[in-house]
């Protein structure tokens, strides 16, 4: 996707109900609620959320902290169970599944990217990326090949044997993205992927996620940051456990353009103000 491509191909949609996917939904949540008890206080994290993620789109789930956006991601990512409601992955209802079946669905169809990277310590980048393939029962040589391929795809082909503590935050997050990709999942779920990164690494990571989406992978980003959300094609706003707004992004930010801008700024030793980047891309 090149700079200047209009992001307004999508029509603005009804706030309460997401757009019905024209082709098919990778993920869908219908009337999902989640309550849990925290320190003897009942918390209603989600109160009847409907969400559809269309195949091939890049979606942002946005909301302030405590809005329930992470809980929603955990539920659609099958890491957590809804109190009520239905979750479907690739059209398949997962409500009645055993923990081991859920593990298998996560393994094959979902890739996760977390704010805090969640790489195995004292384990090489390549071994980290191989991890899902081990549980998928892929043979050793095939694993190594695919892990190398995935790491090359995120620009870390020369860091195969580095341990997480020998990598920068941005590089660690790229290893995590490679791990999410390596099983060729239907969807990549990223929870605040830039939350622990400096702005430059954040831009790199967003650029990679956009690149993946361009290559046809469905990407969902959970964020509280409106700027990060504007990298997506569509944003679902969540507040107090409800979807309050569902909008298409106009003037989508393209991370590749920001990267190019950063390089230019570095050459002239300019200040890397977020506003100037914003203004430029928005212009």
């Amino acid at each position, binding site marked *: 996707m090149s700079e200047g491509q209009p992001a307004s191909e999508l029509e603005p949609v009804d706030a309460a109900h997401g757009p019905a996917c024209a082709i098919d939904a990778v993920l869908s949540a219908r009337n999902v609620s989640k309550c849990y008890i925290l320190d003897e206080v009942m918390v209603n994290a989600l109160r009847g959320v409907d969400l559809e993620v269309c195949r091939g789109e890049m979606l942002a789930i946005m909301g302030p902290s405590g809005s329930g956006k992470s809980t929603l991601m955990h539920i659609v990512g099958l890491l957590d169970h809804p109190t009520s409601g239905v979750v479907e992955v690739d059209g398949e209802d997962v409500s009645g599944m055993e923990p081991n079946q859920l593990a298998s669905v996560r393994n094959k169809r979902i890739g*996760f990217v*977390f704010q805090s990277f969640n*790489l*195995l310590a004292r*384990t090489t980048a390549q071994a980290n990326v191989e*991890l*899902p393939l081990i*549980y998928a029962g892929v043979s050793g040589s095939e694993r190594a090949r695919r892990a190398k391929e995935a790491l090359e795809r995120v620009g870390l082909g020369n860091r195969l044997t580095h341990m997480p503590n020998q990598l920068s935050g941005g590089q660690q997050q790229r290893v995590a993205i490679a791990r999410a990709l390596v099983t060729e999942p239907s969807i990549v779920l990223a929870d605040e992927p830039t939350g622990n990164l400096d702005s430059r690494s954040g831009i790199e990571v967003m650029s990679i996620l956009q690149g993946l989406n361009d290559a046809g992978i469905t990407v969902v980003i959970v964020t509280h940051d409106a700027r990060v959300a504007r990298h997506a094609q569509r944003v679902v706003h969540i507040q107090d456990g409800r979807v309050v707004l569902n909008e298409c992004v106009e003037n989508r930010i393209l991370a590749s353009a920001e990267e190019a801008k950063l390089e230019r700024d570095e050459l002239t030793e300019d200040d890397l103000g977020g506003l100037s980047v914003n203004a430029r891309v928005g212009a």
Partner: protein
Amino acid sequence: MNLAESFRIAIRALAANKVRSALTMLGVIIGVAAVILLVSIGTGVQTQVTGSIEGLGSNLLFVFPGDYGGSGGGGGPGGPGMSIRKQFNLDDAQSLQVRLGTDAIVVPVIQGQTSLKHGSKDWRTSISAGNESGMEVFSATLAKGRFYNRAEVVSGRRVILIGATVRDQLFPGQDPVGRVVAVDGQPFTIIGYFEAMGGSFSGDQDNTVYMPVTTAQQLLGSKDISSIIIKAVNADNVELLKVRVQQALKPKFKDQFTVFTQQQTLGLLSTLLGTLTAMLAGLASISLLVGGIGIMNIMLVSVSERTREIGIRKAVGARTYDILSQFVIEAIVLSVLGGMAGIIVGAGGAMALKPWVPAEVSPWAVVLAFFFSAAVGVFFGVYPAYRASRLDPIEALRYE
């Protein structure tokens, strides 16, 4: 995911925490080594003691004053000083010899303690005294010189034969035969010395001097003797001889004497030492158990320390079984590696102790210790592993 993969993951996890893994293994190493070492020493002592008794020949009868409760009652050969109503004397031995005739050789025996002095050196030692047939019943082998003869026994001559330890202490590197040594202040002529026999459960058998029984009576100022040892000329007659000895002594001593055959003594000692060995093994097993609990501790710590790791693994598709097998295998690898190291340490230690302590590495102890350590690993590894495998992925990921 297959078993080989689980193994690789477990090894990698253990290698990532080398110090902790080594310390955990230490408990198992000590436990297994202790079991093997103690059982080896136990069996070694047992073999040596029964061997040395068997070495006397299977045709000996031991007659002790006092009622030890027939064949069973426990208690072995006792020295003087036990509370016994009626002691034997030389006449009893003499009349037994007359009764038994040429079927048996009767040796009256005195055992006691004394001190020797040669030059400026004092040395405490035990006395074994008998008659001229003493060599038939004492297990020592003459290295040089001669045993005392009948004339010397009859006249109570001050002649003495010394054991290897006594010789080493008083006459290091010299030939003691013909030299004079002071026994309890009285001069004795050394007429021979014995070869070393090695240690035994009852102390140093080589720290003994041998003299005529009459001489010992004078020395100790008593007409009593400690016991009577009878050697059957024909080994097949031992049981019959036992009955005849009992009949002969009954009129004078009533029930206040006990006749042991060598088989009985052997059986008694064997049972005793067997029990001792089992007790040692039991004590050592406690340390193995403690080692196992150490493994459980570390695995529990490891589970909570690696809760996040478990969360990550589950998020990317690990099933309950994968997590369970990973942690169980970690525990087994720890305990089996520890077990093997323990076998090396224990068996090596037993070998190294051999010059001083009779030790015999018994294969069953090695096999038992090894399987016990593996079982410890499984047993104490399963609970933490089960806990780890049951963790909810999101709970595990949230864990700080």
